[in-house]
C-alpha cells in the first residue's frame, strides 16, 4: 500500500470538509507545508480551524487562506506579521485563540500521544488561565490545557523514505513533528522521497506510523528576516548579532 501521491491535491483528495480542524507545521515561514496550503486554497474548503504557531504573512504561507476567507479560527502564539489577519480579526470576521508557544506545541504532541489534557504552570494567573481548571501540585499552581485532536495535519519535512519515516533539517523541524502527531490523517510534503534503508534507523525524527500520505515537491522557502554579518568582520561575532538587511 503506497503512501506516495503525485501532488498535494491528490494527497488531499477525500480528506477536506468545511468546518474541519487542521494542524499545520512551521515556525514563521520556516518549514511550512507550502504545497498543502496552496492545494487547500485551490480546493476552497471553508470555515477552517487552524492550529499553527503563526498565520503566515500577507500573500504567503497561511496568509493565502486568510485572504481567501477560508479560515474561521486560528489557534496560534504569534500573528504579528500579517495585516490581513489583523484586519479580519479586528473586524470580527476571524476568531483567534492565543496559545503560549510551548503550550501549543505540547497540546499538539498530547493529542497525538493520546493525552487528553495536561497541567502546566505556563499562563497561570494570566488571561490565558482564565476559565481553565487550576490544580496544585507540590505547592505550585498549574492550569489544565487540553490535547489537540485535528482532522488533518499538514507538515513539511526534508526527506522521508517510502514508508514515511522522516527527517527534518535544522530549525525547519519546529512544529512539524508535534503537528504531524496530532492529525487523524497526516499529509507530509518533502524535498526528497528516498528508498527504505537510505535513512539511518537511529536518526529518524518522526516514525512513518504518523505519516499517511507523502508528496515530493519544490519549495519557495521564503526568508522572513534576512540578517547577515559582513565578511570583513573578522572578529568573533557573538551569537545572533549583525545587522538586518
Amino acid at each position, binding site marked *: 500500500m503506497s503512501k506516495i501521491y503525485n501532488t498535494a491535491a491528490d494527497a488531499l483528495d477525500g480528506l477536506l470538509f468545511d468546518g474541519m480542524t487542521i494542524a499545520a507545521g512551521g515556525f514563521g515561514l520556516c518549514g511550512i507545508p507550502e504545497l498543502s496550503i496552496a492545494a487547500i486554497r485551490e480546493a476552497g474548503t471553508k470555515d477552517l480551524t487552524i492550529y499553527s504557531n503563526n498565520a503566515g504573512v500577507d500573500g504567503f504561507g497561511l496568509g493565502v487562506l486568510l485572504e481567501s476567507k477560508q479560515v474561521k479560527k486560528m489557534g496560534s502564539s504569534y*500573528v504579528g506579521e500579517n495585516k490581513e489577519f489583523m484586519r479580519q480579526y479586528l473586524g470580527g470576521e476571524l476568531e483567534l485563540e492565543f496559545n503560549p508557544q510551548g503550550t501549543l*506545541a505540547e497540546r499538539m504532541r498530547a493529542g497525538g500521544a493520546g493525552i487528553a489534557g495536561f497541567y502546566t504552570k505556563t499562563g497561570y494567573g494570566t*488571561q490565558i488561565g482564565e476559565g481553565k481548571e487550576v490544580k496544585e501540585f507540590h505547592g505550585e499552581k498549574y492550569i489544565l490545557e487540553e490535547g489537540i485532536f485535528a482532522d488533518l495535519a499538514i507538515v513539511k519535512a526534508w526527506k522521508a523514505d517510502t514508508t514515511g519515516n522522516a527527517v527534518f533539517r535544522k530549525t525547519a523541524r519546529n512544529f512539524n513533528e*508535534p503537528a504531524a502527531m496530532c492529525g487523524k490523517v497526516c499529509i507530509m510534503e518533502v524535498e526528497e522521497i528516498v528508498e527504505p534503508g537510505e535513512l539511518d534507523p537511529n536518526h529518524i525524527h518522526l516514525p512513518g506510523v504518523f505519516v499517511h500520505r507523502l508528496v515530493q515537491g519544490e519549495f519557495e522557502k521564503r526568508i522572513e528576516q534576512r540578517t547577515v554579518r559582513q*565578511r570583513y568582520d573578522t572578529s568573533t561575532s557573538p551569537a545572533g548579532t549583525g545587522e538586518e538587511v
Partner: protein
Amino acid sequence: MSWTRDDMAKRAAQELEDGMYVNLGIGIPTLVANYIPEGVSVTLQSENGMLGMGPFPYEGEEDPDLINAGKQTITELPHTAFFDSSMSFAMIRGGKINMAILGAMEVAENGDLANWMIPGKLVKGMGGAMDLVAGVKRVIVVTDHTSKSGAPKLIKECTLPLTGKGVVKMIITDLGVFNVVEGGLEIKEVAPGVTREEIYEKTAAKIVN
C-alpha cells in the same frame, strides 16, 4: 548620565555564569550576546528549536531552514543541537534553561511581568514569553526605567495583562539594578550619575532600601 542600551546589556551580561543555558529576548536582551564576559561560556537557546545559536550568516550564506525565534537568519556552532518545538519547550518548562533575559512593558513590585499585550492596541501574541517566565529558573528584565511618555514602568501592580505572576527576579534599567525581594524592590546598584532620589521619583513600585 544614565546607562545606554549597550550599558544595560553589558550589565545584564555580568549576571551570566560559565556553563549557563540562556534564552535572550528580542530588543536590548539580544545585545547581551555582545558582552559575554571573558572566560564565561554560555549556550544560547532559541525556542524555535535550537541550542547553541551562532552569529548571523555571511551575506549569501543565509539558510531559510536556519532561523532564530525572532525569525532572523542565523548560523550553527559545533555544539549546536536542533530539536522540535515540543522538546524545546520541554527544556524551558522543565527548568533546564538557567536564565532568560527579557524586555518588559511593566514590572510590579512582586515580580509580576507584563510584556505581551496592550488592550485596545494591535495584539500580536505572547509567542514563547509565557512559557519562558513560567519555566526558566531566573528571569531578568532589561528595560528603560520609564515609558516614552515618562511614566514609571516599575509599578505597584501591573495594569496590563500579565505574562506571568511573580516571575521576575532582577530588573536592569537605565537607572540601575533592582532585585525583587520580599516587600518590594531592592536597589542593588545605581547607574553612574544617577541619584537614589531620581530613582525614587521615577519608580511607582515600593523600594525597600
